[in-house]
């Protein structure tokens, strides 16, 4: 089965050049954009033959979406009062405006950068160039990633210099939802040697998105398309948490790509609740000896939501560790596609790699697909394994909780939320953690609806 290239109307070479002109970008960045556009046009939307069956873009109306051509700074955005309690910095972009930008003084003093490409290109272009030039911070075989490379109209750089241990997370918040509009961005995160940082990314419905009337017509779709491009130097540590709660009419595409240097540590905690269609691909490249990645990802879908979640983990250096866990809960007609590929290259002696994909289907029309793949060229491993399961809620557990006085519905809910808790527990800001917990609880159908679902399943 061959998949055609993406047909978008906003990530061609002419678009790329036009955007670069708007921002008066240096020639190396123009070359980046043009190269990206070329890779979008020349490749099928899914280049990995393993996964072609499970790419379903039928609900996405690219033709009805016009991405913003540029992004501006809203009045009063640069205000220290915008900084959430406990955070080290915030950059909040809503539709085509930066609406909040602030940083704690100590972070500022330590040389931490949280700013748009536009500003950084004027002051310290090398910080961006050293991470992204030549397309090294994105998978070249993924046209979705290349769309952002070609056509992003906002870029965010997070830089934590060597040796800095930053207390409190850097908050990146994105809001979209205006009908027919889209925001395409890139986020580059570079963490210096032995530095330690936390990033919390929140993807939410914008004011426009929230106030939009519920309407089933397809031209209400809005789009978010972005990247997270991470470069961890020797001994660096990054905790990255992501919460995705876009509105129902939003379609979203995200590529997250991390390159880990020697003894670097990356911990992902990612939760997806919103968006009608959500595609995510994560690439972990364990290049440095002794580097390690831990990734926990959950998806909770209802109605007709489709979560298309792919993760590639490539072990290159010696004694690297990969520990990946994906969990999904699906209601109504929601679908989850969990695609994973662990590659252990010949050089990766002493690898320890595990990939787990677990799903709970709560209604008969829900669907879960898991493709947990392994490609192994080096047998001298500590571990190379994957595990996957799909099952209904354990009746024994329900019985136990009911014997403790919970109603059947409350018991089911407690079990499902407990299943997802490992990600929730790792969200860094107490407020954000409570927010995610509330989001997941809200997703649980009212007791009456659950009883109906239960009956349908019986």
């Amino acid at each position, binding site marked *: 089965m061959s998949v055609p290239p993406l047909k978008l109307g906003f990530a061609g070479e002419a678009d790329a050049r036009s955007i670069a002109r708007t921002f008066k970008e240096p020639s190396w960045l123009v070359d980046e954009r043009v190269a990206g556009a070329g890779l979008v046009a020349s490749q099928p939307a899914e280049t990995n*033959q393993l996964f*072609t069956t499970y790419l379903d873009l039928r609900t996405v109306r690219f033709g009805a979406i016009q991405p913003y051509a540029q992004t501006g700074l809203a009045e009063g955005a640069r205000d220290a009062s915008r900084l959430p309690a406990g955070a080290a910095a915030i950059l909040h972009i809503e539709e085509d405006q930066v609406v909040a930008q602030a940083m704690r003084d100590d972070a500022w003093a330590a040389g931490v950068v949280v700013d748009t490409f536009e500003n950084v290109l004027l002051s310290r272009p090398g910080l961006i160039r050293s991470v992204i030039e030549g397309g090294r911070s994105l998978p070249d075989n993924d046209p979705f990633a290349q769309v952002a490379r070609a056509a992003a109209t906002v870029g965010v750089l997070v830089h934590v210099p060597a040796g800095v241990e930053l207390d409190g997370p850097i908050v990146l918040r994105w809001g979209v939802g205006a009908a027919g509009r889209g925001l395409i961005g890139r986020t580059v995160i570079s963490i210096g040697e032995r530095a330690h940082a936390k990033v919390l990314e929140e993807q939410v419905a914008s004011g426009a998105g929230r106030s939009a009337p519920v309407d089933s017509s397809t031209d209400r779709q809005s789009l978010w398309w972005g990247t997270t491009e991470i470069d961890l130097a020797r001994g660096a540590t990054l905790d990255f948490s992501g919460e995705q709660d876009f509105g129902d009419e939003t379609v979203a595409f995200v590529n997250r790509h991390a390159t880990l240097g020697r003894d670097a540590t990356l911990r992902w905690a990612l939760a997806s609740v919103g968006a009608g269609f959500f595609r995510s691909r994560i690439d972990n490249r364990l290049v440095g000896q002794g580097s390690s990645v831990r990734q926990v990802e959950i998806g909770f879908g209802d109605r007709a939501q489709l979560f298309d979640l792919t993760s590639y983990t490539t072990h290159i250096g010696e004694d690297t560790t990969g520990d990946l866990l994906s969990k999904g809960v699906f209601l109504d007609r929601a679908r989850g596609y969990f695609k994973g590929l662990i590659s252990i290259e010949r050089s990766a002696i002493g690898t320890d790699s595990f990939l787990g994909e677990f*799903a709970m289907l709560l209604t*008969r*029309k829900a*669907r879960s697909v*898991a493709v947990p793949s392994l490609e192994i060229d080096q*047998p001298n491993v500590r571990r190379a394994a994957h595990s*996957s399961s799909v*099952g209904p809620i354990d009746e024994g557990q329900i019985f136990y909780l009911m014997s403790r006085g919970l109603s059947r519905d409350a018991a089911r809910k407690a079990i499902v939320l407990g299943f997802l808790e490992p990600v929730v527990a790792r969200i860094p800001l107490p407020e954000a953690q409570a927010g995610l917990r509330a989001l997941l609880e809200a997703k649980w159908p009212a007791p009456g609806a659950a009883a109906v679902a239960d009956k349908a399943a019986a």
Partner: protein
Amino acid sequence: MTQTAKPVVNDRRAEYAFHDDLIYLHEAKRGLTRATVEEISALKNEPDWMLQFRLRAYEHFLKRPMPMWTDGLDKIDFDKIVYYRKPSEREERSWDDVPDQIKDTFERLGIPEAERKFLSGVGAQYDSEVVYHSVKEELSKLGVVFMGTDQALIEYPDLFRKYFGTIVPPEDNKFSALNSAVWSGGSFVYVPPGVDVPLPLQAYFRINGENTGQFERTLIIVDEGASVHYIEGCTAPIYATESLHVAVVEVIALPRSKVRYTTIQNWSNDVYNLVTKRAHAYEDSNVEWIDANTGSRKTVKYPSIYLRGRGANADIISVAVGGKGQHQDTGAKAIHLAPDTTSRIVSKSISKDGGRVSYRGHLKVAPGATGVVASVRCDALMLDDMSRSDTYPYIDIQEDDTTMTHEATVGRISADQIFYLMSRGLTENEAQNLIVQGFLEVFTKELPMEYAIEFNRLVKMEMEGALG
């Protein structure tokens, strides 16, 4: 505990690789055209519907692109293949009538011996036609049919037409289309209601003749409440240029029946072995594929079971050994289409000497298939760091009360295990052999004893010198 020097590879395969210079009574020209297909059909005096079936398949074969999800198939040169050859004029019923030269080949394969011992019947395929066939008298009395597929088309036209091509239609994939266009030979089995075939039915398949394609077609129908065990094993002489084996096997397990289909595939390392094997399992039936692949240059084969009736059970054990220059792209598929069906897939693979083994599997629970219980287990051993092991499982669940578990591990034999066995007096090679045999035991224990011995011998042969 020092090791004396020993050959790195002690390949005794040549002992089994013999080639007789036969005079073929009829040999089709190389290459595939519409005329080739018409010629094959005419030579076999087939009814018109079969000719039409072949032509439909041929048209589809031309249109269908080469699969891209596995590599190396583009090396097959379809124009170099001889699509039909017939070594003797008619199907033989008595051993005495079999031409001496062919008989000699079978003697070396040990067929008559095996038959004397315990086999119920023998259908041996020598190149493209069934030349020898016997069914024990008591089985004939029970109404069991075991004959060449070509012959069955003539003798049981109604039964044949009712089921042929219904499990694997020509349009299923490029190679099922090719087989449907040029098929020749293979086994036809029918077991009437309630009949329990007490001993395994065995067919030996061989390829002989350089660049001969072998396109056997097997159809097994097991009626209600009946049971049968069918065994096939393969050997082939070694040639320098590519050979092609493209088979289709269709199994129909009617309600409450039991079918076990066992394969030991040991084609020589120049053969492309591209096989579509599929069973339909009806109410409360039980279907098992026991499938081992040690030979061939490239095997692409995923024995499949479509669970169509309530309560049906599927069991697939898949074993693959991939050595130098080999790629075993094998696996299993269980498609749950009915409620309360169960399936179990166990895959064991070994890669060594730069070989590659890929497990590819599909587990699907379709809407309506409630109460499914399914499990998949894939284990891979890599004996050196020149080799490669892949696992590609597809798990697609569309019912909320499914219970599915999947596990996979890849690794090498631990030094601790080897050390322990060596401390008990085994050589390094013996220790490794023992561990490998234990690893594959889930498969060997399902084989009839004589096959198990033969298979263990084969594995031992493959392993010799693997530690270097």
